[in-house]
């Protein structure tokens, strides 16, 4: 049994390798099709034909595409993501300093979505056509139909401009505060770790609006999935049998039904996370958040292909690893996985 599971997990991990390779190919090809010549940008405005050519050779852009790809792969494996053309910094360093900001935002957004969507879905499933169910339905429809940049601007307009509850939406921390000591890179956690409650509060209040924006769009699929899979398992024979056997309602709902309903839910959460990574780019732009998303947009505008490549690769690695994690989790949760095939 355990052996079977171990094998299944191992197989799943091995399957991730070709995926990574595929991502590398795609990110490489995508950036080569970007309009504009990076050599021209890099050489500067005043450069003449000869110096542009020199830059081109320096960057290896005069070689054939397969050669460039191999060189690229070799560099990646050595941890060298190249240098950003616009900032002149190492791309990996650049991403490393900006990634915690994005992750902090995304994870908090996902967390907000989970703690509202799951209970909402459960209650809606327990009482179909009650007011909670209707609220759930309205939220799902709104969440699914509002574009992320709109909800971002809307929240900002209401809570910052009209009500003045939220701090000014510029970055991770108001300028009157000092950055907390770099431990994890998550300002809120770092602030807590050094015991600086004041900074924690400030960092957290900056986070609320952008992460709520993300949560709003993640809410819809999670709530809908919770509701429908809870309905299925609540109507199942085993829940009925548990009722007949006098297993109390609480245990029936949370242990019997929810445990079974959590399996499809897990898959959806993986998908939603990927969705949030994409949504991040817009939210960061709207809230001037110094994360990888805004970095990627700037790089894209500047035809900074090393930076774009780095961004695409890191995001893909994140997404694939998370889905891998979810698959492994699923395998551990569902005893039927890997059996009865």
């Amino acid at each position, binding site marked *: 049994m355990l052996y079977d599971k171990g*094998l299944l997990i*191992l*197989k799943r991990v*091995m399957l991730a390798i070709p995926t990574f390779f595929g991502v590398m190919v795609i990110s490489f090809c995508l950036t080569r099709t970007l309009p504009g010549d990076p050599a021209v940008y890099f050489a500067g405005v005043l450069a003449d034909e000869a110096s542009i050519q020199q830059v081109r050779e320096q960057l290896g852009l005069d070689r054939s595409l397969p050669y460039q790809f191999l060189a690229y792969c070799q560099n990646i494996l050595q941890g060298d993501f190249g240098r950003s053309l616009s900032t002149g910094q190492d791309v990996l360093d650049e991403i490393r300093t900006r990634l915690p900001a994005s992750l902090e935002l995304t994870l908090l957004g996902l967390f907000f979505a989970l703690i509202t969507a799951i209970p909402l879905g459960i209650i809606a499933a327990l009482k179909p056509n009650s007011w909670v169910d209707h609220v759930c339905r309205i939220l799902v429809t709104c969440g699914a139909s509002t574009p992320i940049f709109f909800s971002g601007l809307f929240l900002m307009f209401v809570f910052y401009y009209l009500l003045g509850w939220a701090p000014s939406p510029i970055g991770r921390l108001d300028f009157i505060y000092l950055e907390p000591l770099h431990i994890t890179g998550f300002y809120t956690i770092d602030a807590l770790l050094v015991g600086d409650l004041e900074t924690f509060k400030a960092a957290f209040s900056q986070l609320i609006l952008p992460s709520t924006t993300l949560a709003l769009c993640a809410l819809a699929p999670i709530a809908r999935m919770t509701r429908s899979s809870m309905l299925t398992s609540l109507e*199942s*024979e*085993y829940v*009925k*049998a*548990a*009722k*007949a*056997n*006098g*297993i*109390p*309602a609480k*245990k029936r709902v949370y*242990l*019997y039904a929810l*445990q*079974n309903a959590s*399996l499809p839910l897990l898959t959806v959460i993986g998908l939603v996370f990927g969705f949030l990574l994409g949504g991040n780019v817009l939210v960061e732009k709207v809230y001037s958040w110094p994360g990888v998303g805004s970095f990627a947009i700037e790089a894209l505008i500047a035809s900074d292909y090393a930076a774009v490549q780095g961004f695409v690769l890191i995001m893909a690695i994140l997404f694939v690893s998370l889905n891998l994690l979810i698959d492994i989790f699923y395998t551990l*949760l*569902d*005893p*039927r996985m890997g*059996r*009865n095939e």
Partner: protein
Amino acid sequence: MDKQPLLSIKNLAIDFETRRGTVRAVRDVSFHLNRGEVLALVGESGSGKSVTAYSILNLLDKNGRLAEGEIFYNGMSLHNANKKQLEEVRGREIAMIFQNPMSTLNPIRKVGQHLRDMLKTHGYANWSNLEAEIEKLLHQVEIFDVDRVKNAYPFELSGGMCQRVMIALALACRSQLLIADEPTTGLDVTTQKSIMDLVHNLAKEGDLAVILITHDLGLAAKYCDKFVVMEKGLVVEQNPRSHFFADAAHPYTQKLLLATPSKDASLSELTSHSPDYLHLPEPSKATTPLLQVKGLRKTYGKQTNFLFSSATEEFVAVEDSHFEIYSGECVGLVGGSGSGKSTTSRMLSRLEDPTSGRILFEGTDITAISSKDFIRHPLRKDIQMVFQDPTGSLNPRHSVFDLISEPLLRLGAYRSKEDLNSKVEELTRQVGLPSEFIYRLPHQLSGGQKARVGIARAIALQPKLLILDEPTSALDVSVQATVLQLLETLRRELGLSYLFISHDLYVVKMLSHRLLVMQEGKIVEQGMTKEVMSNPQHPYTQGLMAAIPVIEKKSPALAEL
């Protein structure tokens, strides 16, 4: 002191709120039950037997409501009990087991966890004696490899094992009353016997009262002390076992009794009126076989991959079968689940390719044509199939007309609309479907009508061989009787040959001239039906015959009808 019955139900009525208003599903039901008694709640689908039983523990669906009447259990009134009182009773005083044991256990909880939930919920064990208690319970339901079963998930156990576990759950808190809702439907006859024997023993030795909900009069006759027969929400008859068969007075009970297959009943005796086919002559039997099966074998490879190496485990589904079917003849194929009878039928109907062996149809080796190509082969018309699940085998979005005309359009030469219309009409008449049904959708038909559509479809192309894979197992007995008679009529009228597959020997034997008995992929016995039935040679056949509960003898009163 125990004068008072354990359970008494008085003038029960149950309403269901539907879109078309309130429907009274059950009316004026009264019965009572003593300790150690097994009561059969008998009736066909829609009779209200399950609803009645579910109302005892107030397990009705949300739109259901106990409208009138009283339910007393051990002096306590259950009809007006509140939620908390009901939770006390459920599982502790009254427990239930259900039809589909595999899906009534939580798929991702181990058997041991189920039992622990039960014992802890009702406070019947603490951490120190929990495991000992579980072992005792599993022993009680005759499970002896306790450690394996305790740590198994439901999907790792067989249906019979799961039902035993359900019974263990029901017994966990020393319930006094067990409600068993068709507990053996879908299980093998041999498993059915062991489960019912177990329940019966528990009732007799443990003073347990049992309500057995069933559509099978044979089963009820064997295990129950008391009969309550329901039809359309009403109790039509209620008798102790000793009087039941002799005194069955109500026409519905008589109809049920007649329709239940038994050892000595013939097909024409299943209904009170004599069926039409009796005046039809037996089709003449040919001397050369229509179908010859030679050394048919089917194995399934179970591949286990480890990274780059792979190993194949072989599972033999059908082993070296030999038999013939002559034209105009009905051959019965009997066996338990997993005996390979369905695999055989799928190979004969060329839906699946055999691993080795040959199937000769009128001398042509049809195994030479792969199952993929057989769809377009002219012989496709000649071998047709009627499937087990009448609902699942009909496309829910197609009308009866579409369903019946589909094979005609695909394989028949029906060019004009009038030809097609008249052919479909003829077919519906042949299978006894009223012609106004042709534009109905499957969900608007009853089980028996759906079965008739399946048959009409199969005979549409005038096949020579019809493979009937448990065509009546999903039907009520009285419907089964008429469908079986229809099949016999069609065989005589059209000179069809049948391969009739079933797990129920007594159903098969009524139609078949010859019998094949399969066990674990092998044909262990074959011979003329009469000989096999009167003098079974193989122990497996003997076991099958012993396991199927039948009404031993029809009452003299009934014989006169």
